[in-house]
């Protein structure tokens, strides 16, 4: 089964489709991208994730050819593409606003790019029909963009940018304008189309759930730098910085000092009156190093009585956030820290074990958390 796993980034012989090499982009005094190096491989669904203003859109615009790097080089299939104008790149982009041409029909919108490079009417028509079929838009071919719904417009934009069979498709917040239900359906549709066409997709998004759902790898960005590039699982389970741990999902952070306590395990002293907590770490830490222990709320258990566990701390329930399928308990510790514990609501709510102000124990295993050196 091992060979069916898609992981070209682990294969040293694989040549990346896109290479950012020490790319810096400045707008006047503002540094949008700061000495960034990144490889993206063929057939990847790569997500650039970060808060607004982190430089993800600038990276995308540099790939499309609307901006040029101030320093460094961007290679596409081994060739430096700096200075190649947007209309001469085998890269297409799906715009956040979709940017459909309002005066052209759906059919003509999709044919626009094809007509720029070919005069063969039959071939263009065949390709447009193929794209209409792929995006299930056959019925709307003659309509103008203002005569179709938002979801259909999104599919027209996708069909138009895929029509020229680009080496690389850029998607700038492609689902931002859709409502939640439609967005979820469209995410799976995007993945399906990506698989069918075998195109490399680079998606820009600020929605972490979207990035985790669609992407083969995610790059978490902040202030023009890439904080971590990894598969969604690794980003979530093994973040390598407090920023990434905090940005993706919900997390409990305990601040303390680590002391080795044998076999890749460390005792973290985090409060004067509390026993140190035990945590395993594959990354070595020196003795006495200050660090954060990051634990996801769903890996924290909550009990009435003191449990048999690697780590257990007593506190009282401060708040309960009921989310339907899950409940998140905010447990206040005597030190004033708050630990969030997430529990699946497998029982009806009337039979819940804990309520506000109840004294409880929270526990987690040695391997539940990640130790992040400061």
């Amino acid at each position, binding site marked *: 089964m091992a060979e069916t796993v898609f992981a070209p980034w682990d294969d040293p012989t694989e040549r990346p489709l896109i290479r950012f090499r020490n790319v810096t982009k400045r707008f006047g005094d503002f540094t949008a991208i700061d000495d960034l190096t990144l490889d993206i491989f063929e057939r990847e669904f790569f997500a650039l994730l970060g808060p607004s203003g982190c430089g993800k859109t600038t990276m995308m615009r540099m790939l*499309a*050819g609307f901006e040029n790097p101030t320093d460094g080089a961007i290679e596409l299939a081994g060739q430096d593409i700096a200075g190649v*104008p*947007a209309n001469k790149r085998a890269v*297409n982009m799906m715009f956040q606003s979709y940017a459909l041409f309002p005066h052209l029909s759906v059919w003509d919108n999709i044919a626009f790019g094809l007509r720029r*490079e070919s005069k063969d009417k039959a071939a263009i028509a065949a390709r447009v029909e193929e794209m209409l079929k792929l995006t299930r838009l056959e019925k709307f071919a003659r309509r103008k963009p203002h005569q179709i719904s938002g979801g259909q417009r999104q599919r027209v934009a996708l069909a138009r*940018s895929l029509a020229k069979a680009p080496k690389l498709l850029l998607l700038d917040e492609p689902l931002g304008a859709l409502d939640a239900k439609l967005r979820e359906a469209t995410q799976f549709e995007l993945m399906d189309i990506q698989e069918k066409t075998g195109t490399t997709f680079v998606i820009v998004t600020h929605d972490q759930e979207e990035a985790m759902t669609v992407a083969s790898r995610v790059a978490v960005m902040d202030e023009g730098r890439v904080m971590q590039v990894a598969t969604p699982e690794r980003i979530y389970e093994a973040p390598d910085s407090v920023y990434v741990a905090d940005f993706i999902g919900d997390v409990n952070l305990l601040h303390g000092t680590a002391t080795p306590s044998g076999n890749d395990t460390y005792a973290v002293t985090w409060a004067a009156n509390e026993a140190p907590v035990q945590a395993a770490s594959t990354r070595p830490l020196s003795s006495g190093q200050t660090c954060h222990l990051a634990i996801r709320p769903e890996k924290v258990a909550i009990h009435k009585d003191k449990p048999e566990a690697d780590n257990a701390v007593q506190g009282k329930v401060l708040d309960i956030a009921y989310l339907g399928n899950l409940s998140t308990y905010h447990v206040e510790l005597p030190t004033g820290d708050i630990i969030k514990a997430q529990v699946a609501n497998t029982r009806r709510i009337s039979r819940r074990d804990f309520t506000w102000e109840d004294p409880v124990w929270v526990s987690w295993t040695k391997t539940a958390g990640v130790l992040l050196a400061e």
Partner: protein
Amino acid sequence: MNRLSSFNVVSLTLGFVFLYVPMLILVIYSFNASKLVTVWAGFSTRWYGELLSNEAFLDAAWVTLRVAVISSTIATVLGTMAAYVLVRGGRFMGRTLFSGMIYAPLVMPEVITGLSLLLLFIGLGLDRGVLTIVLAHTTFSMCFVSVVVSSRLVSFDRSLEEAALDLGASPWDAFRLVTLPIIAPAVISGWLLAFTLSLDDLVIASFTSGPSATTLPMKIWSSVRLGVSPEINALSTILIGLVTVGVIAASLASKQAALRAKRDEQAAARAA
């Protein structure tokens, strides 16, 4: 429906009387049988007939029309180009200066524009005639076109042009196939504005025309100085009629377009 209060009725009436009574009198007297402008002597269309056989007026009308069409077309091309560069050119040396300078002729007294153009044409040794009027009208109406078109370009979604480039269009193709069709209404109203300005300009035309070319406003002005004739009334009535028909047609067309767009959007929303 709200009923208007008596105060509103009075102010509305006063305003419209003030605006339209002079024109109404002119129209009525154009059908006067008498040659005296101030004495009513019964209904007649005689002056319209005489107007059509008056060579001098017809010549002037033809010159005016030619000047208006040519100058407004050139002004539209130049004004659109200027607007495009000023809105889209990004930051370049002297951009603020240029955009200020394009608006300056709007507030410049016509007498000064006319005089400076006259001096230029004399300096260049150009014979004054249709050509010089066309040049002069192009010069001042191009600013109006540029203002109209740039206000449309400012609100134009730039990603549409980027999408065209991204799909392989050259910058010229992107402009021709995407930008121009979308801003066409603004370009057309710019052309109409330039056309109207050229049509009724008297001052600049007087400065820059020569004995070989007389525009209609100049002709009317010079004949009125010899005494108002009913022919002038007839001519003015024709002009008023043309303008009224044009304005009504334009507003009906844009109302239809707006209604259609609204219907389409509702249909799309229902289908979703």
